[in-house]
């Protein structure tokens, strides 16, 4: 780790001011992505602005129509929330499967989304449910948020404040975990929402993406059998020592089928 200056602002406004005037600074949330990066000397920020002490970024609100999660909320809190479990069980399930107990106790939804790791879990839910990402500047629709591998629509210094998930009629999430890292090798988040069927695939491509063909088939009939015969193309999918693009393409069908079954289809 290289040396850096450490700040712990108490308010969002303070944090915003700091990040605005420190071009080489970085926000620190749960630290479960950033700290390992620093330890390996793969990044050298001049300053770390720890947003872990900002009350405005914490907490969950659940209404009949939406689950809103503060950017600084830990995975574990989402996983255990009785209200989230009731409103969107697939979202609580997703959170409960992120990493291990230690990771869930530290990692936050804001950090996960800002990072847009192709193998992260939350992007599946954000895209699958058509959530809205609130930032210090604006609101960003899920369909506009993920731009590529570790790339999002966020501007320099823009801070995610909360994420608003509309409550769907039903939803399911299945992932095939990478055996080594237990991150997502291929995940599928399927939801029947007010705006129609959404199928988001994570782990398989450079960032989470929607699978239009499956959405169409499921719109005709919301049943596992509807996706049985579908095949996502392997072109453009990730290929690494754990899984080839062809295998990932196959898993997209299997995970989607199982996610639909989980959602009761």
């Amino acid at each position, binding site marked *: *780790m*290289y*040396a850096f200056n450490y700040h712990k602002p108490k308010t969002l406004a303070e944090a915003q001011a700091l990040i605005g005037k420190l071009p080489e600074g970085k926000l620190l949330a749960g630290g479960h992505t950033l700290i390992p990066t620093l330890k*390996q*000397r793969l990044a050298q920020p001049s300053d770390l602005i720890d947003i872990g002490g900002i009350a405005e970024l914490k907490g969950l609100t659940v209404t009949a129509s939406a689950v809103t999660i503060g950017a600084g909320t830990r995975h574990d809190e989402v996983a255990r929330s009785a209200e989230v479990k009731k409103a969107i069980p697939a979202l609580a399930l997703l959170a409960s499967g992120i990493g291990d107990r230690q990771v869930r106790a530290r990692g936050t939804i804001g950090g996960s989304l800002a990072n847009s790791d192709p193998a992260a879990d939350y992007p599946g839910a954000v895209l699958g449910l058509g959530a809205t990402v609130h930032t210090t500047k604006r609101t960003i629709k899920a369909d506009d948020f993920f731009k590529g591998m570790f790339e999002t629509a966020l501007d320099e210094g823009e801070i995610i404040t909360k994420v608003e998930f509309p409550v769907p009629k039903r939803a399911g999430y299945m992932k*095939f975990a990478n*055996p*080594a*890292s237990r*991150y997502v090798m291929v995940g599928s988040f399927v939801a029947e929402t007010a705006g129609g069927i959404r199928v988001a695939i994570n782990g398989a491509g450079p960032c989470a993406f929607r699978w239009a063909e499956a959405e169409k088939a499921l719109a005709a009939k919301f049943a596992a059998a509807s996706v049985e015969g579908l095949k996502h193309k392997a072109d453009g999918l990730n290929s690494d*020592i*754990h*899984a*080839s693009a062809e*295998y990932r393409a*196959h*898993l997209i069908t*299997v995970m989607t089928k199982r996610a639909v079954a989980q959602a009761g289809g």
Partner: protein
Amino acid sequence: MNAPTGIGASVRRKEDYRFITGQGTYTDDINRPGQAYAYFLRSPHAHAKIKSIDISAAKSSPGVLGIFTGADLAADKVGGLICGWTVTGKDGTPHKAPPHPVIALDTVRCVGDQVALVVAETREQARDAAEKINVDYQALPAVVDPAATLKSGAPQLHAEAPGNLCYDWDFGDKAATEAAFSKAAHTVKLDLVNNRLSPNAMEPRVAIGEYDRATDTLTCYSTSQNPHVLRLIMCAFIFGMPEHKMRVVAPDVGGGFGSKIFCYAEEVACVWATRKVGRPVKWTSDRTEAFLTDAHGRDHVTHAELALDKDGKFLALKCSTIANMGAYLSTFASSVPSYLYALLLAGQYTTPAIYAEVKAVFTNTTPVDAYRGAGRPEATYVVERLVELAARQLKMDPVEIRKKNFIPPNAFPYQTPVAVAYDSGQYALSMDEALKLVDYKGFAARRAASEAKGKLRGIGFAAYIEACGIAPSSVVGSLGAGVGLWESASIRFNPTGSVSVFTGSHSHGQGHETTFAQVVSDKMGVPIDQVEIVHGDTQRVPMGMGTYGSRSLAVGGSAIVRACDKLIAKGKKIAAHLLEAAVEDIEYDKGTFKVAGTDKSVNMQQVCFTAYVPHKYPADLEPGFEENGFYDPSNFTYPAGTHIAEVEVDPGTGHVTVAKWVAVDDFGKVVNPMIVEGQVHGGVAQGVGQALLEQVIYDKQSGQLLTGSMMDYCLPRAEDLPSYTVATTETPCPHNPLGVKGCGEAGAIAAPAALMNAITDALGVEIDMPATPEKVWRAAQTRVTRQAAE
């Protein structure tokens, strides 16, 4: 009554309180006054010429105490790392052991090779300075694959080893084997890869070098499994200095699995650098360095064949193996794919003719050496996969084919065609017990139940053999070992009856502080809490050979028994004097010396006290109650047993669930059943890891390590493992005083074969380890296509 603490009792581990409450003293817990920190600049290339190293900018970096390159060590005439076992090839020439400099001189041969050593006030400062060292590399083409490195045109690693060949060795009777194959009714052929593994001890390696000017002695604190061997190598081969001027301390060691046997560059460099900077120098490996520099295990490619008669009786076995040694020969590397491998190819069977050829090769990868089982898992894997495949091809039951070929219990000692003579065994007994525990008869119903859920179920066997208790010095000497493999013990009774036992074995998780104390408590009739076990310090413990090859109880424990026997013999003389009887009339039993046929007796404590306060004492007897024992076994021991694995495969994803595991092992006499069970659990976990999850992968072009962290190198987690059913049968070893055979490696030896046999049974397709989801999924597809065609 107190719980039993003698031989055969499941005594709770005495060391666990310390370990579980975080109060162990590991090498990294040791910090010496004025200590400085070492950081190694390592090669980013798999193969490159070093054109120049510019340290000028780094030297003035804050906190730097010294920066050293290979040239500095060469100027001090520091020797290179050695290989302590010479294997002689088919043509009668010794293996090629090219120079292995502690810090690279003009060429780097694997990613992670040491290029420079920086010593600074803090670890971070040392690392900062290392980043300012300017190395001008000329990258060279690299080769990582053991078969590819033998091809003409492959990049050449060492001028001393043309064609990248370390040795081309064979063993067994080629003519008899070929003759048997020519007459065989059936021949079964199999190509196998034994995947490269990274040992991943929980505690990474650490070394501290410290020089004491007053006594002119060097101390090396190290995470070593065998501190005396480390001292011997450093003094005799690397520094050329007398052993009494070097002390090696290996305190609590958090796992080794073989990887901490070897003498590594980092400990040598710290010991050397401490005099250069005039400060103690400490190096602590991080996990990435561990992946890059701890000696790896396995990495074989093998073609094997088994010849059978029409009834399924084995006639002959032959195999041809290429074994990857990595970039340099590690301390015992050469022996692993030769003598520790081919000599075990008889397995539990009467196969009359066996022939093995092994080519050991250099590649631009981390050196490969002994890893839990060392050669023997590779042998069991070849034999047991072949046997299972033979059963499938001959449409025989896998149990029946094995039983037909087992060496019968009345045939021991049994001379195999590959030099070793098995001491004792009851192979069918272990197998029958395992069949009962797994409910073999119920398998068909379990398979049907899995199929009803859309899953494939398979069952797999491994009837393994190992040669442990390494080993008779005369035998290993004749095979090229540069050391003797006896063990030492010194038992010192303190005047009031407590006992200090100094052993040359070294515990790095095996529980010696408990097991050895049980042996002494049992033999000497002393309460177990009055016995302390001391190991891991060359200044306190007599010269010893350390722990590996499941040898500690069989060899080290036997040395302890030797010392106990000497004390008992002396005790009898003291007792006879005290009881005014003839020595011949003294009977000894568990701490009591008694005049035969009378009720006159004295106990161990009285005898011991008398030896130190010899007021009433035999005139011709030395006072004191302390004895040394050295033990050199007359043979290896041969633990054996049957492991049975059952798996359920999800054909949709290729995910394998290990549904059942039964291990019935014969370790001879068992001193502590709980510790033995723990060793089996750990061994099986590692074997399951090898078969399902673990594999070191290098990029074939660049030679970069692709599995350099836990993100990509997959160790087994609790949820990958089943709940084991573990049992033992007991066929004592006839040639050591405890009747013990050793249990540390069995699980890792048996498990890969058992699990792969189960997976291939489920799939109906032969695949290699590790059975990753994608590989299993592809095989499941093949099965579906084939079934459709049929």
